[in-house]
């Protein structure tokens, strides 16, 4: 009986090792992010001179997206708000609730999401509705009169 127990333990031990040796790399492979996550390039989105002060402007630009083994060039949009002579805020075009595209309501002077009626101020703050946090922003840089946009500055998610 002693020998039988030893064999059974051996079987479990060996299969445990085999399972672990397969599961660890498989888990890492599926769950860890790719190693070279590079910052997005800066792309030109608008002429600073053509942005009106205090009223948001939706701009369309092309940017490269690193998508697995491909870099694809795709159309993106941003809401630009000129806040000073050399200051521009750029909001990512998705509502922070569930990702619908929001629009600017010129009469009420606020951003309005048509999906679940979240409202945001010109500064991106939540005025009403289910949105959990202010609007996400692109990193902005101004060079030679051009507005350059970087990656979306991921806010800390506070649940």
């Amino acid at each position, binding site marked *: 009986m002693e020998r039988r127990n030893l064999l059974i333990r051996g079987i479990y031990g*060996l299969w445990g090792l085999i399972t672990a040796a397969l599961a660890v790399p498989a888990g*890492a492979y*599926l769950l860890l992010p*790719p190693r070279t996550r590079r910052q997005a390039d800066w792309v030109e989105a608008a002429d600073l001179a053509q942005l009106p002060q205090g009223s948001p402007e939706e701009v369309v630009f092309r940017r490269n997206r690193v998508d697995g*083994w491909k870099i694809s060039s795709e159309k993106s949009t941003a809401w630009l708000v000129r806040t000073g002579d050399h200051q521009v805020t750029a909001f990512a075009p998705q509502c922070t609730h569930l990702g619908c595209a929001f629009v600017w309501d010129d009469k009420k002077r606020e951003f309005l999401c048509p999906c679940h009626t979240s409202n945001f101020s010109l500064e991106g703050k939540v005025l009403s509705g289910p949105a959990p946090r202010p609007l996400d922003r692109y990193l902005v840089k101004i060079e030679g009169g051009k507005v350059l946009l970087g990656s979306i500055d991921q806010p800390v998610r506070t649940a």
Partner: protein
Amino acid sequence: MGEEIPASAGWHQVFGSVALFFFLTQAFTGILLAFNYAPTPGDAYNSLKYIVTELTGGRIIRGLHHWGASMMIVIVVLHMVQVFLWGAYKKPREATWMVGVVLLLLTLTYALTGYLLPWDNRAYWGTVVTTQITAGVPVVGPYMLRLMGAESGIGVVTFARFYALHVLLLPPATLLLIALHVFLVRKHGITPTPGDEVKPPKKFYPGQVFKDSVAIFVAFAVLVALAVIVKVPLGRLADPTDTTYIPRPEWYFLFLFQLLKYFEGSLEVIGTVVLPGLAVAALLLAPFLDRSRVLPVAKRTAAFGLVFLAAAGWTGLTVAAVQSTPPSTEVSVIDGPSGWEELSPEELAGVGYFKKENCASCHALGSGEHKIGPDLAGPAIKRDAAWMIAHFKTPSAVVPGSNMPPIQLSDAQLNALAAFLLKLTPENARKLEAAPAFALEGAMIYQRHRCGSCHKVNGVGQALGPALNGLAQRRSAEWVMKHTLEPQKLSPGSTMPPYNLSPKDNDRLTSYLMALP
């Protein structure tokens, strides 16, 4: 589990379980690879490169799948040899044996179809040979070729067919046959040897299960060691115009490859169809060809003799094939050359043209800097030389909307530039870019004067004259400079023509040559 097995059962019966385990492991790693793999020619290569260079564990998963395929063949063959030696194919187990032979053929089909999927030069050229062999089969050849989607050469259709076979058709077929195989094994029981009748039977669990587990563990440990230690190469992107690539099949097919060399002209069909066909038929019909009584394994001398002959024949052919294979000059793209010293003169001259044409003012090389053009060492930029050269000449015709100016260089110089860009990886970009000016100038002079038509550097070039690596150990710089100007004066009888280089050019060329490792 509680089944009874003959008293003689033991270590020699572990191979079937190991083969089953390897099949399941291949399925597991194959599914993982498929999660990040795009099954079309161009993307296949890039996605596999992404798996092995950017995903954590990706190299190991691919290693397990690659080496698992080789080990699967070894184990299946060992399993067959054991069954053959012990005479376990005899009545009533003929069907079990025949299903096993079909499973062996399926395993080989996995190997053939999987070989194409990385879409590098090795895969491409290996499959070219496979399809050509198939095309040469009398009567059915052309139809087989059409079935493989390779009528007008290997391309997207071939790729789709091979992929579909590899992942859609073969696995369920294998599962069904394995189920049938295992059902038959259980139906007829483990083969007893003469004498077992009088001994009390054993239980399958835990004794035999333990032995199977140990064997599986040992084989698996070897597989993991291979996957971790030996890097599976990923060569250059498949290039149908690459005439320097010498295709070779995977090691277990080398004997067939060698066999073909002995049958010339109309006899070729003997090597491609008749002999393999006879071998398969003999395997399938073994239970009916040998109807003698079951003997203890130690008395089956004829069986041992046959296995020995087969092994000797296989080994002889394989060794002959290996000996006739020149060492590969292809550098694995994953690693790439690590310094300028490892580049061929043409590639190094390409670095020179890259600098001369100020390409770096619009293109970064792996630094991720923001520039107008794309980063040329970026992970996603992989083009073949033909694309690049067309793009260099008229950028906007190849990339609509590109505002890159056409490069004003000769075809040979553009070739050099493309050759360099093909060797770029994110890891080596900085080192290659930092090659010293004298080496770049020297390599450009070397290329301009076509020194490579007679000399070899880093394995590239013709062997009419002496190879120039390690020149500094044989000659002084002064000697080399004089020799370039007047070869016959220093080495009478030399067929090298004199090169009337300016003192400055001669000095740069010589400095470059003297720096070669």
